[in-house]
């Protein structure tokens, strides 16, 4: 009786743990659980800023500005995250910000893929989604770190140019180098996501 209780108890704990995690974990062998989540929260403060979330919509509609209003003119995800057949992102957005028109631009300007819907999620949900290889483009931790700290479109957030009124856009709330260090620290420590 006791054995059966223990056996099913362990089984239940194992299963519920998997359910709770809800994503395919990358290997954490050799990692130690961090004593502080400071790096994690610093990173997530950035990823939850409008400069990042606006292009991770949950309704296929890119958002604009700090109030994250829907992109004007019915613009939507379209084909390959690049807009519609004849009216694409590149109809207006080029590979650099345009300070005359206030239209932002960067290399590979596009919406994040459909599986990377972050809008409306909590920071922990976003982090779990980001770690899920099914959602993150099959990136391992090393590749994820590279994407988060070196991809030109991600780095655009710290040089977001001016808006249509010529007013500088607000960058994310953490300076770039501090953010990069936080991402590195979080990943080096096993990319743990705190309990909800």
């Amino acid at each position: 009786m006791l054995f059966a209780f223990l056996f099913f108890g362990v089984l239940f704990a194992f299963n519920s743990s998997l359910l709770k995690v809800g994503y395919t974990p990358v290997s954490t062998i050799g990692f130690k659980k961090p004593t502080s989540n400071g790096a994690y929260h610093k990173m997530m403060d950035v990823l939850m800023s409008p400069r990042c979330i606006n292009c991770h919509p949950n309704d296929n509609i890119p958002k604009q500005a700090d109030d994250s209003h829907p992109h004007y003119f019915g613009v939507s995800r379209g084909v390959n995250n690049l807009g519609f057949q004849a009216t694409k992102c590149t109809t207006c957005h080029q590979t650099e910000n345009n300070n005359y028109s206030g239209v932002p631009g960067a290399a590979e300007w596009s919406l994040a893929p459909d599986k990377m819907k972050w809008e409306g999620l909590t920071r922990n949900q976003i982090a779990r989604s980001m770690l899920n290889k099914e959602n993150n483009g099959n990136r391992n931790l090393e590749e994820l770190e590279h994407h988060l700290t070196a991809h030109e479109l991600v780095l655009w957030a710290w040089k977001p140019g001016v808006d249509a009124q010529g007013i500088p856009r607000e960058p994310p709330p953490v300076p770039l180098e501090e953010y990069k260090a936080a991402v590195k620290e979080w990943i080096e420590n096993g990319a743990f996501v705190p309990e909800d």
Partner: protein
Amino acid sequence: MKISFNINGEPQSVEIADENTPLLWVVRDMLDLKGTKFGCGKAACGACTLHIDGEAVRSCSYAVKFAEGKEVTTIEGLGNEENLHPVQQAWIEEVVPQCGYCQPGFMMATAALLDKIPNPTDEDIDKNIINVCRCATYYRMRKAIHRAAELKAEAIPSTETQTS
């Protein structure tokens, strides 16, 4: 600095101090092609739409440096009085313009659409033709876009006959 590109099939070079000058200024003020219009200057209204390598682009928000080595087509290069583009023909047949200011941009956007989707549905039109017309000629434009698709489809066999 010198920037070279083809415009309406002809090679062109311009000397310009600021490589970030909008292509629209170069087209209108340096090359004297006035068909492409300035509307908002924010890539919002589409009056400045032209083609770069066959793709619709808002030229008020396109730095001239990006045109280097590319094929630029303006409304003047779409067709001419002797050989109207199907979009131009359809626009005449449906008497689309009211004030007419925004129409070149709409026509260039439509020409790009028909290159991608030869027989667009109303939904295709709604998604791809998002320019702004303050005279609200949208209803006539929709009819003209469908008519242009017909004209273009009719023109394809005769073109093939000519070339064969």
